[in-house]
C-alpha cells in the first residue's frame, strides 16, 4: 500500500486540475470495477457489484484534488505572483517549493518583512522559477502549481504533501482490491467516486451525488489529531485507528450510518476512534444534502499538519480503514 500512496502523493493535482491523478487512479481500478466514467466536472466514478435483497446503493467518496496556487501575474523580472486554490495558509508557504502541472519547479519567496515574526500576506509573496526574466519564464497566467515535497517513509508513519486526500484515495483503491482479491459477497452496489474540487467547496461531490442518487453516502478523508504539543483539543490520535466521524463543521453524521460503522468495527475488533471535528468539512456534507437527502457519514484517517507540505499519517490507520470498509460493506444497514 505504501508504494501506491507514494505514487499518488507525488502527482500535482490542485482543485480543478485533477486529470493527471485521475489517470493513475483509473489504471488502478478499471480492471477491478466496471463502468468507469468521468462526469462533467471530472469526477471518476466506477461501479462494483449490484443491489441485491437487503442491499443499497452506496456512494464512497475520496477527493483527488489538493490545495495549490494559481498564477496571476508574471513581472518583468520573471517573478510569479499567485492566488490560492483551497485552504492555503501563508505560514505554510515561505521557503517552500512548488511544481507546476507542466513540470516546472520553483521556490516561494517574499518581499522584505516589516515584522519577521509574522508570515506575510499572499500579496507579498511570489514564486521564483529561476528565470532570467519575463521572456525566459515558461509559466503563464492561469498556470497551476502544487506543493512539492518528496515522500518521506518513517516506518509506520509517512510524511508527504497531499495525504489530504490521496490517503483516502489509496484506502478506496485498496478496498476495491481487497473486495476483488477475497471475492467478497455484498448485498450492496458500491459507487466509488474519486471526486474533484473538494477543497474549494465540495463541488465534485455535489454533482456526482446528484447524478448517482445513492441510498447512503460515505466519505473517506483525513481529520486532525490532538496529539501534538499544545494542539487544539481533539480526542483523535495518530496510530489509534481510523476515526468514525460524529460531526464536523459542515455536517452531523447520520446516526444510523454511525451505528453501522461502529457495529462493524466492534464485531471485527478493528481499532477505531470517535471523532468530533470543530474546524473542517468533507464531501459527506454535499452528499447529505443531495436531492431528497442521503444519510451520510465519514471514515477519517488521522493526519497531523493538514494543509502543510508535510502531512503525516500512520500506515496502520490506513490499513485498518481498509479492513473496516471491507467488513462494513458486507453488512446490511438498518435505516429504520
Amino acid at each position, binding site marked *: 500500500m505504501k508504494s501506491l500512496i507514494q505514487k499518488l502523493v507525488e502527482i500535482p493535482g490542485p482543485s480543478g486540475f485533477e486529470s493527471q491523478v485521475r489517470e493513475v487512479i483509473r489504471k488502478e481500478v478499471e480492471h477491478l470495477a466496471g463502468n468507469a466514467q468521468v462526469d462533467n466536472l471530472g469526477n471518476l466514478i466506477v461501479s462494483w457489484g449490484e443491489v441485491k435483497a437487503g442491499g443499497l446503493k452506496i456512494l464512497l467518496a475520496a477527493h483527488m484534488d489538493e490545495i495549490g496556487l494559481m498564477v496571476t501575474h508574471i513581472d518583468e523580472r520573471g517573478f510569479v505572483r499567485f492566488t490560492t486554490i483551497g485552504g492555503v495558509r501563508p505560514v505554510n508557504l515561505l521557503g517552500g517549493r512548488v511544481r507546476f502541472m507542466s513540470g516546472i519547479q520553483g521556490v516561494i519567496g517574499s518581499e522584505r518583512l516589516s515584522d519577521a515574526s509574522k508570515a506575510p500576506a499572499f500579496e507579498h509573496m511570489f514564486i521564483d522559477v529561476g528565470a532570467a526574466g519575463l521572456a525566459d519564464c515558461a509559466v503563464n497566467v492561469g498556470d497551476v502549481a502544487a506543493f512539492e515535497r518528496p515522500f518521506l517513509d518513517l516506518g509506520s508513519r509517512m510524511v508527504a504533501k497531499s495525504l489530504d486526500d490521496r490517503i483516502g484515495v489509496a484506502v478506496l483503491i485498496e478496498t476495491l482490491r481487497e473486495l476483488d482479491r477475497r471475492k467478497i459477497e455484498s448485498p450492496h452496489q458500491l459507487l466509488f467516486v474519486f471526486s474533484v474540487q473538494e477543497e474549494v467547496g465540495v463541488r465534485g461531490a455535489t454533482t456526482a451525488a446528484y447524478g448517482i442518487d445513492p441510498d447512503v453516502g460515505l466519505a473517506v478523508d483525513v481529520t486532525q489529531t490532538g496529539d501534538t504539543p499544545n494542539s487544539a483539543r481533539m480526542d483523535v490520535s495518530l496510530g489509534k485507528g481510523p476515526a468514525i466521524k460524529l*460531526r464536523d463543521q459542515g455536517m452531523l453524521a447520520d446516526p444510523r450510518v454511525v*451505528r453501522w460503522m461502529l457495529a462493524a468495527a466492534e464485531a471485527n475488533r478493528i481499532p477505531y476512534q470517535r471523532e468530533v471535528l470543530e474546524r473542517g468539512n468533507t464531501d459527506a456534507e454535499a452528499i447529505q444534502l443531495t*436531492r431528497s437527502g442521503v444519510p451520510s457519514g465519514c471514515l477519517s484517517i488521522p493526519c497531523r499538519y493538514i494543509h502543510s507540505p508535510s502531512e503525516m499519517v500512520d500506515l496502520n490507520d490506513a490499513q485498518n480503514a481498509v479492513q473496516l470498509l471491507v467488513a462494513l460493506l458486507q453488512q446490511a444497514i438498518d435505516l429504520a
Partner: protein
Amino acid sequence: MPAITPHTTQTINLLKKLLSEPGLSAYEDPVRQMIEAAWQPLTDEISISRLGSLHGLRRAARPPSEGKPPSLLLAAHMDAIGLMVTGVVDGFLTLTEVGGLDQRILPGQRVIVHPADPRSSRQDLPGIIVRPPEYLLPGQARGKSTPIEYLLVDTGLTPSQVEEQIQVGDLVSFAQPPIEFGEDYLAGHTLDNRVSVAALTFCLEELQNRSLAWDVWAVATTQEEETMAGAFTSAFQLRPSLAVAIDVTFGDGAGSSGHKTFPIGKGITLGWGPNIHPALHKTFAGLADRLEIPWKLEPVPRMSGTDAYGLQVAAEGIPTMVIGIPLRYMHTPVEMASIKDILRTGRLLAEFAASLDQNTMDRIVWDA
C-alpha cells in the same frame, strides 16, 4: 383571537411536552415521535423523509381528474440547539456547540447528557455546565468570558463512573423545564422552534373538519439549526407549489434594541424581502387583516435565517413565505413567547390553507 377551546388547550399541552423533549439537530427521534403521535389523527398519511424530517399529508378533498392537485408545504423545524461531548478530562466533559450559542449563557446551566446512539439503553445523565476558575485557564482565555472550549460538564459522578458511561459524540441538551407565567406566556428552551411546531399542529386541528382543494403537507424539518438539510431535501422530494416557513423571530427582551425586535404578545410578523414572494406576503397580509390578527412587516433584506432559505431554491424554485412568532432571548434556555401569538399563527395558516383553490397560482406572479 380564538377562544380557548379543547383544541387550544390540547395544543398548549402538546407544546409543554415538546419543550421537555430532547431533539438536537440530526438527533430529533424523540421529538419526532411525539409530533408523529400528535399528527396521526390529524392527517391522512404520515411518512419520514430520508434524512428524518416528518411529513404529514392532508389530502385535497377532490383531487383533479388527472395529475396531482397543487400542494402547500408548511415547514416548522423540530430540531433544537445544544452541545456535543468532545472529550473526557478527569471525569469532566469538554464540549462543542450544535447550532449557534452565546458562550456567556452557559456557565451554571443544568444539562442532560444523552447517548449518541438513539437505540442505546444507557441512561440519560444530568449535569451542570461549569466554568473553571481562571487560574486553570491558559493566559489568552483569562479576563474574558469563558470560551466554550474551556467550559466543562460536571455530572457529579466519579471519573471512573464517567469513563464507563459517557463517550465522545454524546449529546448535551439543556435541562430547563418549561416555565409558565399565568395563561399568557411560556418560557424555556427549544421554544425555537417548538412553538412553530405547536402552531402548525393547531393549524391541523383547525382544518380537521374542513374540506381542502389543495394537498397540504405539514413538515417538521430536521437540522435547520445546522445545515437546513431538512428544508432543502423535503422541498426537493415533495415539490410543492407554495411553501411557508414558520419560525421564531426576535422578541423585545432586555438587552435587545427596539428597532431589531418585535413585542411578544402583540401579534406575529410577515416577512418581506428577496427570500419571500411578494404576492404571498400580500395574500397573508390581507388574510391577517380580515381575521383581525395583528401583524407587523418584518424586513428581511438578505436571506432569512429560516427553512425558507432552503425551500425557495429547491429544484426549480418555489414561491416562499416566512411567518415569524416573536421570541425573547432566542437561543438561550429561557426563551419566552406569547401563547396568543402561537394560536394566532396556527389560525392564520389554517385559513390560508382552506382558502387555496384552482385560481390561487394565477395570483402568485411577479409584477402583478
